[in-house]
């Protein structure tokens, strides 16, 4: 049974080869501590959804072990499933049913009596701003509402591990931020959360630890802080006040003139922005605003995935 010092999730040597011989997972190891907010990042087809599929029993693993709060899914999957709530990538509820019925039915599958299920359904629908729509057919909900309905459904049995597969895909920024606040709150209350996302800003904002998966292998598994430390260089976009015709030259700072009012500057971690600004100022260039070209994590992510690609291509040549 579950004890307080166990990991929420322990994956060892997990491999999955599909019937068409595609190796989606090539023996990955992953540990997620209780109470963590964990990001699983990777490009399309990297193995994120397969990993989630194995955890929640929608994908049958080829080999390896998966333990949820210390319970081996091969030994007692039914007990392990009680701990897990899943928000899949695609809408997978009956669009003809009402949100309240979807939630009460889902609770029933976990053996929760109707009166308790009804109470919880009302609580989560209210928390996620769906209560006004609890009695309308789900197909009439907007995309964002459908996403929130899937989160409410995943929480109805009050799981201790919540797995979200790109929960904010296609959701507008305002709604995304309100969902972040909600997820942060349930994490604060003790629910371990594993999140896959394409929005690296989302991972940086929400998660404490991260694993990057690519081509069925974990290429990085560390804390977000450690990962950011690995960032050697950041690229900034500078908007300048007066139009310029030629690209300024500043020693130690490679600059590209993208248009007559915009500069792109790559700044090494050990270099100062103050120095850059003063040297540009000396050349009569006045900066009016500055922003990152890409999310910091995104730069690292692209770098790691590209390195993994080079490594694989090198391996194929041998």
């Amino acid at each position: 049974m579950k004890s307080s010092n166990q990991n929420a999730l322990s994956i060892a040597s997990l491999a999955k080869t599909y019937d068409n011989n595609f190796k989606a997972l090539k023996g990955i190891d992953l540990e997620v501590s209780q109470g963590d907010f964990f990001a699983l990042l990777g490009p399309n087809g990297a193995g994120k959804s397969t990993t989630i599929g194995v955890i929640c029993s929608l994908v049958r693993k080829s080999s390896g072990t998966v333990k949820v709060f210390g319970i081996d899914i091969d030994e007692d999957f039914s007990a392990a499933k009680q701990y897990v709530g899943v928000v899949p990538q695609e809408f997978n509820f009956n669009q003809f049913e009402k949100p309240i019925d979807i939630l009460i039915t889902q609770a029933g599958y976990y053996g929760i009596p109707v009166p308790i299920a009804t109470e919880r359904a009302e609580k989560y629908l209210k928390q996620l701003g769906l209560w006004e729509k609890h009695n309308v057919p789900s197909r009439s909900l907007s995309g964002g509402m459908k996403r929130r309905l899937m989160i409410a459904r995943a929480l109805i049995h009050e799981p201790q591990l919540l797995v979200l597969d790109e929960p904010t895909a296609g959701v507008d920024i305002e709604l995304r931020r309100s969902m972040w606040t909600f997820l942060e709150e349930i994490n604060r209350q003790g629910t371990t959360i594993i999140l896959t996302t394409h929005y690296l800003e989302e991972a940086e904002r929400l998660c404490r630890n991260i694993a990057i998966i690519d081509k069925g292998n974990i290429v990085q598994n560390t804390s977000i802080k450690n990962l950011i430390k690995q960032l050697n260089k950041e690229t900034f976009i500078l908007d300048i006040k007066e139009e310029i015709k030629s690209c300024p030259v500043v020693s130690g700072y490679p600059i590209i003139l993208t248009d007559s009012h915009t500069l792109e500057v790559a700044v090494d971690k050990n270099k100062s922005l103050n120095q850059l600004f003063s040297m540009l100022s000396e050349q009569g260039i006045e900066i009016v605003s500055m922003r990152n070209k890409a999310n910091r994590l995104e730069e690292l992510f692209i770098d790691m995935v590209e390195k993994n690609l080079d490594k694989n291509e090198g391996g194929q040549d041998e």
Partner: protein
Amino acid sequence: MNNQQQWIAFSTIVRREIRRFMRIWPQTLVPPVITMALYFVIFGKLVGSRIGDMSSLPYIQFVAPGLIMMSVITNSYSNVVSSFFGSKFQSNIEELLVSPTPNWIILVGYVVGGMARGLGIGFIVTVLSLYFADFSLNSLPVTIGIVLMTSLMFSLAGLINAIFASSFDDISIIPTFVLTPLIYLGGVFYSIEMLSGFWQTLSMFNPILYMVNAFRYGMVGITDINIMASFAMVGLFSTILFFFALWLLENGSRLRN
């Protein structure tokens, strides 16, 4: 899951299934009743009055038990096949697969849902038949026993069809090309005593013949088949189908990647 949780999971599936066919009643409840009413009018009254007696019974009395059984069979089958395949198609079967509900509860839940519709329609058609024919029930246990077992068997068959199906065509092939011919050649409209030796022997391989005759015996007291053989046949088929369906769910190859 403990016993109480399993009971809740089971009743949830059954409730959801009943809610589904009640919600779409113009598709699920009305058409079979209209079809059967037409059968009663045409075969029972219009054509039946010219046919005269069949196995020493007025034709309407002979044909009515078969028509009731026909509606039980088709509705039990089609409820499970369409509901389960619909869940697969929309992926909401995943709601059940990720839950701790055991496979045998999923199986029994869907089957009981199918039986609820099959027996419900059967009851409505029986009430309808009373308008066209007079019955004095011959054996209540035989009537209830065989109709329950038949509904069970075809609900199981519908589930198996749905597990194998990968398109909407796949869920209409069996009802169209297997079920309908077996029903029409299963003694619903005629007694197999009318057939020559070879065709009589061939008919004995049709499981629906056993069900229709047992039900007819229960209602009006005549049969072409030994009643115990009928129960044995339906019981055997149901047991085989139950374990095959359970194996398919446990194996999961058609539901999980």
